[in-house]
């Protein structure tokens, strides 16, 4: 049987042909779009956009081939657009934000980021939202508009990070001794980088004692491990040399 015998009229054959061409072209162009030199994670969004545009054009052409008057449809679409415009303000805002986000590329799929108080690993960057997995394994969808308005902290951008640990010691503690203990502890931590060299920064005399900040660098992968290791090692090292780590104390004189 020929297509004409199956579908009945030449118009239907033409419409079906256009539809099939549209589907094939949308798939092929969508696939080709993924090969563009884009940042990781953008492929899916670009593929969806290309497929939607190509698909819409060919569906309209198919309807026209079937004899539908698209000018009426377009006229109605004008009214619908106004109505939809009001209804889809948020989506449009998200889509536009998505375009800016894709252009600016503050992060990529797989990066650990903090957006609007949510910290997690980016699973996908789409036109309307980004999807993240938090460290307690919760799936979070953040609208692109929110992402654009928020401060974004990308924890994966640079290869090394600094661990800061604030230590309190009694007011009368020998700060020179404390300094040597802290630097010695950093030196013995296998995950602490030798350079950039660990630093001690005097923060001030607080209510509970003198406050010092120990800053040690680690590779991004070892940041948390080093932070935990230092938190354990520092009080032990101070006590071993007779320095009592400070605890919050409030004196009330009546």
């Amino acid at each position: 049987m020929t297509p004409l015998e199956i579908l009945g009229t030449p118009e239907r054959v033409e419409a079906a042909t256009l539809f099939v061409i549209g589907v094939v072209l949308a798939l092929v162009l969508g696939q080709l779009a993924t090969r563009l030199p884009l940042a990781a994670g953008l492929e899916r969004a670009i593929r969806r956009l290309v497929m939607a545009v190509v698909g819409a054009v060919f569906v309209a052409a198919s309807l026209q081939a079937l004899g539908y008057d698209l000018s009426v449809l377009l006229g109605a679409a004008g009214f619908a657009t106004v109505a939809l415009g009001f209804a889809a303000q948020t989506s449009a805002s998200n889509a536009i934000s998505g375009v800016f986000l894709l252009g600016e590329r503050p992060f990529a799929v797989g990066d650990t980021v903090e957006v609007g108080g949510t910290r997690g690993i980016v699973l996908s960057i789409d036109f309307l939202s980004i999807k993240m997995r938090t460290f307690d394994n919760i799936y979070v969808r953040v609208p692109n508009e929110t992402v654009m308005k928020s401060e974004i902290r990308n924890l994966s951008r640079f290869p090394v990070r600094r661990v800061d640990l604030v230590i309190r010691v009694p007011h009368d503690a020998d700060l020179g001794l404390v300094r040597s203990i802290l630097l010695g502890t950093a030196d013995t931590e296998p995950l602490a980088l030798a350079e950039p060299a660990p630093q001690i920064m005097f923060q001030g005399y607080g209510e509970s004692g003198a406050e010092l900040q120990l800053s040690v660098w680690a590779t991004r992968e070892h940041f948390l491990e080093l932070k935990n290791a230092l938190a354990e090692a520092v009080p032990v090292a101070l006590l071993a040399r007779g320095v009592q780590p400070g605890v919050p104390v409030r004196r009330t004189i009546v």
Partner: protein
Amino acid sequence: MLGPFDLWVVRSGGEAFLAWSTAGDELRERGFDDAPRPDSQPALLRVPEPGRIVLEPRTAPLSIVARPETPVSLAPGASLRAYVSTPLWLQMSTRGGAGPELAVQPLKHTWAGTTTDGSLCIATRTHLRLSLERLPRRAHRILSAIVLRNATNETVKVERLVLPLPLARLYADGDLLWSESITLVHKEGGTDSLLNGPPREAASAVQVAASRVSSSRGLTGVVSAVLAGIV
């Protein structure tokens, strides 16, 4: 036993395990003999029997950062010959194939470059010495001869050097291990590293290991690291 590195066989329930620790010196101070203690935390590797274990010497897998004892300045056109000793690695293999690669002493990593771009290196605690006699000679370390040439029109201060040891072949001369001699030429806009075979101090040395990577392309960040090394 090789410096602070200990390697021993543990037999348990008819099975053989290879155990090793880089805390050898510390363990011996505490009365360690030939049996692993729970607190020594040795690493264990189940090995096939019967068979033999082969340990092959290797250079460091990353570039090494070394500092001179005191900062040295190089006048335009001047060159400097210096020596450094770096930790030895051992590639273990058993009848079943290649095993883990072990550093014979605990290591400290360091970063060469800026905090936004650079490469991970190994820091050597031994200083760069201008005289070979002043360098401790130990069987568990590799000696390297370095020539640094200033090909710029300005005096440069050498505070630290990043040595691309993964590019160097390894040689044995009697009880000592030597890496291929390394020449660093500091030019306007960059530093070139050249490898020149066994150093003249060990001219009769025989090669015991090939280089880990064949060219600087395989060594991430080596060029920028060398650049960062000359301040």
